[in-house]
């Protein structure tokens, strides 16, 4: 018996969401009295053994370069095989784009109940109860997994990464990798940018910004705070900002530590994508904007006057000239 954690990586580096998944899996292993093991497909430049400091004892690897790109069919087959050999009864992955591509297939193959988007450690004293977000962030539900093998995909930025002592044993698995069913023709990745779904701080602009030419201060503020930029649906629909920045019910759902909304009124559909943020700051000239009801801090006023002052105050705090 063990908890098996899927470790995802990009550009040779372990993803932050995977470190969260490792810590979550390790805590769950401790809670249920079994070892925590990892599985990593493809190649990374990091020293895998050092991941032991997050509480993981073994890491199974299949170091074939072709697996550096998402190949859902192969991933599902290999993870299932390793889950079988190490007797995994719980599989943990992140509810990211990769997790979304593979977790349902794993559930079918392993006949394992799946809860996607978990927000806390399961309650295991009686049964196996996992808390997750439902109604697009407007509520939580507790789901009981009834199968012997269980799969949990963890929401990003809900479980803290903690380091301790230890090193992990690396086990190179000799599992043949078949030809891909899906051919990857091209990949475009934004390098160096902070991923919206992983960002701890997000600065977001809405229609109140009046036009794409006014995004300079939002980008500057985001850069100063090491934040990602986001926008509301009308902004993405008008083409002011790319669609992959649209947060809300029909866009991306995020849960940063700090969400700064500038010129966004806070329609219920927008709130659905951001109300899991730990702290919300709203800057809007309309004191009746519904967003203020969901905010922790707010400024009623003209964003174009407030932003320059806000930026210079942050610069002062950070010691940037």
């Amino acid at each position, binding site marked *: 018996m063990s908890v098996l954690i899927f470790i995802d990586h990009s550009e040779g580096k372990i993803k932050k969401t995977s470190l969260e998944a490792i810590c979550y899996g390790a805590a769950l292993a401790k809670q249920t009295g079994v070892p925590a093991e990892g599985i990593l497909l493809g190649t990374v430049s990091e020293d895998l053994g050092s991941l032991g400091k997050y509480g993981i004892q073994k890491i199974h690897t299949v170091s074939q370069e072709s697996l550096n*790109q998402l190949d*859902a069919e192969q991933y*599902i087959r290999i993870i299932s095989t390793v889950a079988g050999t190490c007797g995994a009864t719980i599989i943990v992955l992140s509810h990211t*784009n990769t997790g*979304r*591509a593979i*977790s*349902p*297939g794993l*559930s*079918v193959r392993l*006949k*394992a109940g*799946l*809860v*996607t*988007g978990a927000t806390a450690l399961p309650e295991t004293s009686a049964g196996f109860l996992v808390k997750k977000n439902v*109604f*697009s962030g407007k*509520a*939580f*539900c*507790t*789901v009981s*997994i009834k199968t012997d093998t269980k799969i949990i995909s963890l929401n990003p930025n809900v479980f803290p990464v903690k380091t301790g002592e230890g090193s992990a044993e690396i086990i190179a698995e000799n599992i043949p990798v078949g030809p891909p069913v*899906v*051919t*990857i*023709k091209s*990949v*475009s*990745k*934004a390098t160096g940018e902070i*991923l919206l779904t992983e960002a701890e*701080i997000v600065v977001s602009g809405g229609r109140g910004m009046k036009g794409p030419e006014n995004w300079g201060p939002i980008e500057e503020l985001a850069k100063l705070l090491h934040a990602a930029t986001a926008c509301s649906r009308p902004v993405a629909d008008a083409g002011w900002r790319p*669609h992959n920045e649209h947060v809300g019910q*029909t866009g991306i*759902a995020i849960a940063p*530590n*700090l969400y700064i909304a500038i010129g966004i009124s806070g329609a*219920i*559909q927008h709130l659905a994508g951001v109300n*899991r943020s730990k*702290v919300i*700051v709203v800057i809007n000239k309309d004191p009746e904007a519904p967003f*203020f*009801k969901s*905010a*922790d*801090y*707010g*400024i009623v*006023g*003209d964003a174009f*006057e*407030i932003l320059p002052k806000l930026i210079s*105050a*942050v610069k*002062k*705090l950070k010691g940037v000239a």
Partner: protein
Amino acid sequence: MKILVCISKTPDTTAKIAFTDNNRKFVTEGVQWILNPYDEWYALVRAIEIKEKDPSTALHLIMVGGADCDAVIRKALALGGDEAIRVNAEPRDSFYVASQIANVAKGAGYDLIFTGKETIDFNGASVGGMIAGLLELPFISLAARFDLSGNEATLIREIEGGEETVSVKLPLVIGCQKGMAEQRIPNMKGIMGARSKPLKVVEPVAAESFTEIVSFELPPVKKGVKLVPADNPEELVRLLHEEAKLI
């Protein structure tokens, strides 16, 4: 070409979310039911576009649910599609729903099975991938674009930190998101025509459910906003630094 679009009903995006019966049941009184936006705007509309280009395409819709779903199914048929199938069962969990849809699709010769990326109520994002797993078909999740050339599909899908253009031979299952198609409003002809389109009701097959919802809860209520004067944004920075300790 034969296409199956999997649809689901969800509360309207502005619906009040409340629970009753010891937080075990969602309060449905006064709730407007709509087609799940991802199923409608992206999956269904993209499938309709394919049929418009090639009218010989057979376009079927499928939903797992009780008779209370028929109104929403008719709304979907008003947008397009030849016929709808309703598997007459309460959707117990995503594996149960996927099993019912896979059972209908099995051996029926569908070249493409479209689903939305997730429903806006349970946010499971699981049914599409499970159908693919059950039918042993490739699954493209988070697809933002779909093009077809003969027997080969080219798609753009969202991956971690970017996007990928991929090609894959039919048949396959696709989870659709923003970018696939533009939202449409049904016209009068569509609404009238939907009434006479076949809506077949089939009984469910025996299938397992792997999970069960035990209870719901609402998020804690915010304490209320702390307003900072507009002429003093420095105070906001101080609060975020000293009080919230976030910057």
